[in-house]
C-alpha cells in the first residue's frame, strides 16, 4: 500500500486517538526540573527553520564552530588541587608530562574566602578542598618549573580573584613572562557567589566594582586571558532547575556586559573573551536543550541588544562539569553510569571542555583510581561511541527542538521578572534568585522523600551497598606546614613596604572610578598576603553577611 502525503496535523490527531486507547504508567512524565513532557513530538512542534540554523552561523543553536568535534574534540579538563602549593605543583608537572596542555587550579576554602592560613577562621580547612595560596611565594611554588608563557591556566576563585590574578601576574613577571602573553581563565563570577556558592568578601556593589576593574584591566593588559567564567554550575548544584540555571547565568553575564559598556568599553573589545560554565545533570534531553537555548539567547542578546558587530562576540563558549549533586553515597559505582550519561549530554550539547566527576565524590575528595575512571569515561565517549562523528546529531529532533524552545521561553520569563525587580544586582539583593532556588530544591527533595522520583540506590533498589569504597584522606600536617610557610614569608619581607602598599590600596579604594588592579599588583610585589589585601579593602568596603532565605 502506498503511503500518501498527509496533513501533519491530521496525522497527529490520528495517532492521538490510537494513543488514548492505551494505558500509561502511573508516574509523573516531567523533566527533573518539572517541565511536563508530551508522549510524542512531531514535525508540528518544530520551530521556524531559521531558529535552528547551522553550526558556526548565527544564532548558533547547533554549535559555535562550523566544524565542532570534526575539527577538534572538546578539551578534557580535570580540575585538581589539594594540600600545599608544592604538592599541587608536583601533580601539575605530572599532568603536563602526560600530555595535558592546560592546568585547572582548585583553591582551598580559606583562599576562596580571602582568609590567610593562620586566621582563626581557617582552622581545619587549610589545603583540604584545594591548594592553599597565601602570598606570591605560594603562587611561585605552585608554578615552579612550568613555563607560564606556554600553558593555559584556569583558576577557580571568585571574591578575591583580582588578588589571586595579581599574584599570578607577578609570579609570571618574575619568570620573565609579561602579562600580555598569559593565557587562561579566572572564574571571577561574583553574582553567582551571592546567588549560590556563597564565598564572598565584600558587599555586592564594591564586589562588582572590583570585578569590573579586573575585566577592564585585562581588556588592555591581558588580551589572551578570559577574565570571567560566567557560571551556572553552582547555581544548579544549589538546587536550581535547568531553566533557572540558564536564566540566572545568562542574566549575570548580560549584567557584566552592561557594566563594562557603562564604563565606556566597546562591547567587541571584551565580549569575545567571556566564557561560560554549565552543569550537566542527569535529565539527558533537558540538559542538551539548555545548552542549545543558551547559545541562541546569548547570540541574540549580544547582537540585537548590545549591538556587537564582531561575530566572535556572539559566541557562547562553555565548559561543562557533570553534576556533583547527582552522585549518591549509596552504591557509589552507580555514579560512573550517571557521570557517563551527564557527560554525553554535555558533548551532544556542544561543550568546548568537560570535567567528569569521580564516583566517590559524595564521600570525599576523589582517589587517583576514581579520577582515572572519570577521565576514561570521556575518552570512551570521544573514541568509542561515534557521537563525535557528526555535528549536533540531535539537531532537528522534534523533541529536542521543542524542549530547546521551551527552555528559551522560560529563560525570557525569568529575564522579565528580574527586570521588573530592577535588574540582576537588585534582584540578588532582594534574595529573588536565592528564594527561587531554595523553593525548587525543597520541592525536588519532597519528590524524592515521597518516592515519586526514584533515585536508584537511595529510595529504591537499595540492596547491595557494602559501604567499602576506599576514600582519600588529607592529614592535618598540611595546615601546620602552611602556617609555618606563611610565618616565614612574614619574617623575610619588608614590613614597611607591605604597609605602604596596603595603605595606597585603601586610598585608591576610597576614590571612586580608580582601577584597583595596579594597586593590588603592587601589594603582591611587596609580598602582602591575600588576607591582608582583602582585610584592607574590607576596611573601606565593609564585609558581607547574608540574610538567609529558606
Amino acid at each position: 500500500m502506498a503511503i500518501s502525503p498527509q496533513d501533519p496535523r491530521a496525522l497527529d490527531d490520528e495517532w492521538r486517538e490510537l494513543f488514548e486507547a492505551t494505558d500509561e504508567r502511573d508516574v509523573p512524565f516531567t523533566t527533573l526540573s518539572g517541565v511536563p513532557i508530551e508522549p510524542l513530538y512531531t514535525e508540528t512542534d518544530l520551530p521556524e527553520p531559521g531558529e535552528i540554523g547551522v553550526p558556526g552561523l548565527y544564532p548558533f543553536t547547533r554549535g559555535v564552530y562550523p566544524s565542532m568535534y570534526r575539527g577538534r574534540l572538546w578539551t578534557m579538563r580535570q580540575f585538581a588541587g589539594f594540600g600545599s602549593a608544592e604538592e599541587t605543583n608536583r601533580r601539575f608537572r605530572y599532568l603536563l608530562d602526560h600530555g595535558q596542555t592546560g592546568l585547572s587550579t582548585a583553591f582551598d576554602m580559606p583562599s576562596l574566602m580571602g582568609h590567610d592560613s593562620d586566621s582563626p577562621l581557617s582552622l581545619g580547612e587549610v589545603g583540604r578542598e584545594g591548594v592553599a595560596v597565601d602570598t606570591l611565594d605560594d603562587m611561585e611554588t605552585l608554578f615552579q618549573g612550568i613555563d607560564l608563557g606556554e600553558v593555559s591556566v584556569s583558576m577557580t576563585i571568585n571574591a578575591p580573584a583580582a588578588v589571586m590574578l595579581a599574584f599570578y601576574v607577578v609570579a609570571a613577571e618574575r619568570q620573565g613572562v609579561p602579562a600580555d602573553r598569559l593565557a587562561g581563565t579566572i572564574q571571577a563570577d561574583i553574582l553567582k557567589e551571592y546567588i549560590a556558592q556563597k564565598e564572598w568578601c565584600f558587599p555586592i556593589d564594591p564586589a562588582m566594582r572590583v570585578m569590573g576593574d579586573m575585566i577592564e584591566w585585562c581588556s588592555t593588559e591581558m588580551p589572551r586571558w578570559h577574565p570571567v567564567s560566567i557560571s551556572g554550575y553552582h547555581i544548579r548544584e544549589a538546587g536550581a532547575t535547568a531553566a533557572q540555571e540558564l536564566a540566572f547565568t545568562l542574566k549575570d553575564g548580560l549584567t557584566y556586559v552592561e557594566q563594562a559598556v557603562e564604563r565606556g568599553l566597546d562591547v567587541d573589545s571584551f565580549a569575545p573573551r567571556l566564557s561560560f560554565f554549565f552543569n550537566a545533570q542527569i535529565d539527558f534531553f533537558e540538559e542538551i536543550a539548555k545548552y542549545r537555548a543558551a547559545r541562541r539567547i546569548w547570540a541574540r542578546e549580544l547582537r540585537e541588544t548590545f549591538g556587537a558587530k564582531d561575530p566572535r562576540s556572539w559566541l557562547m563558549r562553555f565548559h561543562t562539569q557533570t553534576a556533583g549533586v547527582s552522585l549518591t553515597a549509596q552504591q557509589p559505582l552507580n555514579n560512573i553510569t550517571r557521570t557517563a550519561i551527564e557527560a554525553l549530554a554535555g558533548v551532544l550539547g556542544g561543550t568546548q571542555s568537560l570535567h567528569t566527576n569521580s564516583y566517590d565524590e559524595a564521600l570525599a575528595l576523589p582517589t587517583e583510581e576514581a579520577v582515572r575512571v572519570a577521565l576514561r569515561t570521556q575518552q570512551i565517549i570521544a573514541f568509542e561511541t561515534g557521537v563525535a562523528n557528526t555535528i549536533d546529531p540531535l539537531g532537528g529532533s522534534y523533541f529536542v527542538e521543542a524542549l530547546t524552545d521551551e527552555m528559551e521561553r522560560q529563560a525570557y520569563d525569568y529575564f522579565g521578572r528580574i527586570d521588573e525587580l530592577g535588574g540582576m544586582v537588585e534582584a540578588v539583593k532582594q534574595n529573588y534568585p536565592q528564594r527561587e532556588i531554595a523553593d525548587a530544591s525543597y520541592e525536588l527533595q519532597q519528590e524524592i522523600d515521597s518516592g515519586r522520583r526514584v533515585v536508584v540506590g537511595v529510595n529504591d533498589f537499595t540492596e547491595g551497598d557494602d559501604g567499602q569504597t576506599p576514600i582519600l584522606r588529607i592529614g592535618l600536617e598540611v595546615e601546620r606546614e602552611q602556617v609555618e610557610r606563611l610565618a616565614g614569608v612574614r619574617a623575610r619581607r619588608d614590613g614597611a613596604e607591605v604597609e605602604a602598599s596596603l595603605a595606597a590600596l585603601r586610598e585608591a579604594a576610597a576614590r571612586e572610578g580608580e582601577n584597583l588592579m595596579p594597586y593590588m599588583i603592587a601589594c603582591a610585589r611587596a609580598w602582602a598576603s591575600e588576607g591582608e589585601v582583602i582585610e584592607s579593602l574590607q576596611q573601606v568596603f565593609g564585609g558581607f553577611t547574608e540574610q538567609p532565605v529558606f
Partner: protein
Amino acid sequence: MNAPATQKIRVVVAKPGLDGHDRGAKIIARALRDAGMEVIYTGLHQTPEQIVETVVQEDADAVGLSILSGAHMTLVPRVVELLREQGIDDVLVTVGGTIPADDIPELKELGVAEVFTPGTPTQAIIDFISGSVQEREPR
C-alpha cells in the same frame, strides 16, 4: 499538633566553617519548621564560638551541624568542647554532610547523637530529633 507554641522543639541549624554548601542545611531547616519545630538557621561561615553562643541565646533543645568541607573532625569536636565548657549537656548534637563512615564512631564517642550522611530522608531526621528531644526532657 495540639501542643502549645511554647513547647515547640527549638533547633539551631548551623553551618560551621567556610564551605558555602547550604542546600542541605536549608532543606533541613525548612523541613523541621514544616514539622512544627522552632528553627533558628545561623547562616553561613559560623565559627564554633558563634554557634555555641546561638545555642545558648536561643535556649535550643538541639543543634544540627551541616559540614561538607571535610573539616568535621576539627570543627565538631570544638563545638562539643565549647558546649561542655558552658556546662551544657542537655542539647542534642547531630551532624549532617559528607562524613566518611570511618569517622562516625569517633564523632559519636565525642557525644554526637547521630550523623546523617547524604541521601538520608528528611523524615528520618525529623523523627530522630523529635524522638530524642522528648526522651531527654519529657514535656
